């Protein structure tokens, strides 16, 4: 079945710095979505991409269906960016397959 390998599983950043999260897909995905779990535990959609890149504020995401990966870049990290981030691919049978998540901690 479809599988999604998300890395790193945990990440610690100082305020103002940046890093990237990555998801590798074992099969060709038609699209990818990135989510962040908020303080109430809800999954909030950050990006939907069928190809290329999208940017929103300090976040930027890229998706390469052919190479089977997607990335989420965070720049100028702020304390409120702390949380768990998930990627999910739309593959076979029109359902999302989620990565295991990345726990991001932003420190002063």
């Amino acid at each position: 079945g479809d599988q999604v390998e998300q890395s790193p599983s945990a990440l610690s950043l100082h305020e103002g710095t940046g890093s990237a999260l990555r998801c590798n897909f074992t099969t060709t995905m038609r699209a990818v979505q990135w989510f962040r779990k908020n303080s109430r535990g809800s999954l909030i959609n950050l990006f939907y991409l069928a190809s290329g890149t999208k940017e929103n504020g300090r976040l930027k995401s890229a998706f390469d269906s052919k190479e089977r990966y997607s990335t989420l870049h965070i720049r100028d990290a702020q304390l409120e960016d702390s949380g768990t981030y998930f990627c999910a691919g739309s593959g076979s049978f029109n359902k999302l397959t989620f990565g295991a998540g990345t726990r991001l901690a932003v420190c002063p």
Partner: protein
Amino acid sequence: NAGVIQTPRHKVTGKGQEATLWCEPISGHSAVFWYRQTIVQGLEFLTYFRNQAPIDDSGMPKERFSAQMPNQSHSTLKIQSTQPQDSAVYLCASSLDWGGAETLYFGSGTRLTVL
């Protein structure tokens, strides 16, 4: 727009009892999904409906789990004879449509604890 509404937020059942979870999708959304989240398995797909019709229930444990969508404004997930391993956060999500091409909006989930 209140988003996807799930009730109850928390449910505790005894082993062998039945649990019914409710979901109200965003108005106008034609696709409704159920997922389950556990620490061990992460987020797992259970089932989804499109225009109230069941499309794919490949993630549903066959014997005790069932899902329905009697009208466009709500869906239910029923678990009969609950077992401790059913304890999880059950998430409902909706999207405008589904061709692999629509943003998914999640509810806050129902945390089910089976004692």
